């Protein structure tokens, strides 16, 4: 079944051999997943609205609110039918459109001649917002058109060790970036690896005990990213085993907080 919204649009939704097709041929089946992809592709209510305006070739500075509101509502209904989780912003926009609609229905107060009614236009704020948003979409398209390092090109920078008297700049951002690249590579590697070296639980237990001191250590520090999922599982089992043997203590101050691990000995001493 074709959702009503796709057949009721004025604009053709396809052009076949030069002929615009306004109504879908009967029996055409759009897989629900494809439709879902289309509908979840919107970057929020303003994006959906500007899509509708473009599709209908409306003037953004003179939006026919009644038609737009109706089409918008149809999309929202469709999204809800398909169980797409709707951000609150979408519903807020629906309410706003309804409000503008009702304000436009109110009789206009008698006006002094020749005074333009524009400032009182109930649509003014919405049109302003849409305009600003579309302008930035244009800005984004411009950014996208640039050749961007990493995506479109890779600058050549041969490594030259600096002379000893030169002080290098270092900042946390640089360190974070390096950490990020490392993690990405580790993630890629774990995908590529076909046969992995087994990680022995006894080795892991030894290693974990070496890492632990009297000071609590975050569980994260014990996880070796490059070992991938098997590594995580082995570490987890190793920790459970150590815990069972009462060699370590596990602490968590509140739900979802970091789990802290430490040697059990310090607890006895304390």
């Amino acid at each position, binding site marked *: 079944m074709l959702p009503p919204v796709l057949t009721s649009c004025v604009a053709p939704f396809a052009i076949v051999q030069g002929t615009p097709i306004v109504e879908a041929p009967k029996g055409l089946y759009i897989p629900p997943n494809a439709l879902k992809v289309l509908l979840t592709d919107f*970057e*929020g*209510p*303003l*994006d959906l609205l500007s899509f509708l305006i473009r599709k209908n070739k409306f*003037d*953004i*500075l*003179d939006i026919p609110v009644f038609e737009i509101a109706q089409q918008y509502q149809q999309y929202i209904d469709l999204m809800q039918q398909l169980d797409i989780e709707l*951000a609150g*912003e979408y519903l807020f*926009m629906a309410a706003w459109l309804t409000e503008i609609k009702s304000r436009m229905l109110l009789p206009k107060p008698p006006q002094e001649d020749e005074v333009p009614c524009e400032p009182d236009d109930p649509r003014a704020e919405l049109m302003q*917002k849409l*305009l*600003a*948003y*579309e*302008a*930035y*979409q*244009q*800005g*984004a*398209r*411009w*950014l*996208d058109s*640039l*050749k*961007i*390092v*990493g*995506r*479109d*090109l*890779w*600058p*050549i*920078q*041969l*490594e*030259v060790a600096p002379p000893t008297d030169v002080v290098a700049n270092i900042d946390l*951002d*640089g360190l*974070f*970036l390096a950490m*990020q*690249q490392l993690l*990405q*590579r580790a993630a*890629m*590697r774990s995908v*590529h690896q076909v046969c992995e070296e087994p990680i022995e639980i006894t080795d892991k237990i030894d290693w974990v005990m070496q890492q632990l001191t009297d000071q609590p250590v975050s569980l994260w520090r014990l996880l070796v990213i490059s070992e991938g999922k098997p590594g995580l599982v082995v570490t987890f089992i190793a920790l459970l085993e150590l815990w069972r043997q009462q060699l370590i203590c596990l602490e968590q101050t509140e739900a979802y907080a970091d789990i802290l691990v430490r040697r059990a000995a310090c607890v006895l001493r304390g």
Partner: protein
Amino acid sequence: MRFEGLTTTQQALYPVVTAWLLSAQQPLSETYMLRLLNSHQDFKKVKAPDLNAVLDVFQTCLAHSGVALVPSDAGYRVEVVKDYLDWVYSLFEQSPPKLSRALLETLAIMAHRQPVTRAEVEAIRGVSVSTQIMNQLKQHGWVKSAGVKQVPGHPTLWVTTDKLLQDLGLSSKERLIEQLDQQINHFLSDKQTQHSSNLIH
């Protein structure tokens, strides 16, 4: 053009300029290279045509290779050309990043309105900016925090970084803002014209 066709000075210039272009960490403009060269005894009299002759020969040498000497707004840079980017990424066990529309929109607003809070970006986009997008922008090293806004809640103010300018091949932050301004104003005036012509007809 071949190395043998260069003058003696140009031949002496060639290794210096090529070493620079291949090891510099940012694009090198002609002016910048000339200034640096002229400050040295041997190359006091070097002029733009000498530099250009050297650049020409270098370009010829790089022909057929996977890299090219590319001029941009910010200057000359040697870069891996797009066709071979995937090969370089395979060496680094990575894949080229994809930039989503949401990310580019957020970046455009941040660049144009900087310093700006996340809430201000959200007000323009009409939807919340996901933590994932913020993380991606930070991971690319394109935005950084620059203090907090002196309003209740003290939200972080975001600005773009020098790395963004380099990655986009732009010479300065002013240039970036100016270009975005142009794009935006162009768009707005287009809409205005369309609107007025609608009114007439």
